């Protein structure tokens, strides 16, 4: 979806390093979400944000940090990457009471 940009598309990092995944929307939708997708688990919510400067934990927040200083950006940071954080990460965006629009995902490998 052209309105959501995730970067990078692929990332390989080492255990213990800090990694930041970027998510940018060209709309001004209120809600932004970070999900991780793992085989056998579907998509699980890491963090979400209802507006700038408002964030909340999802189902699997441990080891992740988010911020939302501007409405259009919602970066996800792994402060000290672990192998269990190897996954595909999706950012999603929506206005209230509407379907989520997903980015193309970031495949992260932690070695």
């Amino acid at each position, binding site marked *: 979806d052209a309105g959501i940009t995730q970067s990078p598309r692929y990332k390989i990092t080492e255990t213990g390093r800090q990694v930041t995944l970027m998510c940018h929307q060209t709309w001004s939708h209120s809600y932004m979400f970070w999900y991780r997708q793992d085989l056998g688990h*579907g998509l699980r*919510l890491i963090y979400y944000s209802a507006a700038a400067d408002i964030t909340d934990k999802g189902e699997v927040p441990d080891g992740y940090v988010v911020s939302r200083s501007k409405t259009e950006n919602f970066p996800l940071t792994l402060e000290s990457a672990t192998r269990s954080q190897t996954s595909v990460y999706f950012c*999603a965006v929506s206005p209230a009471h509407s379907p*989520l629009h*997903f980015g193309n*995902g970031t495949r992260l490998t932690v070695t």
Partner: protein
Amino acid sequence: AQTVTQSQPEMSVQEAETVTLSCTYDTSENNYYLFWYKQPPSRQMILVIRQEAYKQQNATENRFSVNFQKAAKSFSLKISDSQLGDTAMYFCAHQGGSEKLVFGKGTKLTVNP
């Protein structure tokens, strides 16, 4: 907390046939939305169909339709006239008042020629 269960990890269907994917959910909310998303090998998440819980009529989008049974908390997806391009992972999802989507674990659908 809401939960979504897809009991069929994998399914297959012959081209032009009809297939039904199952989904059950649990929620304490009265107003909510249910979705089916498709994820082809490209990894892109594509919205297939959306159902509003307060609407009794089942949603339909071309070859895709749902059977929404609110009392039974069941939300199945029927794909008619299956096409090779329908091969994908299909995820059922629930969205309540918090706007969060809760997903099932997915059903891998293969359409055979």
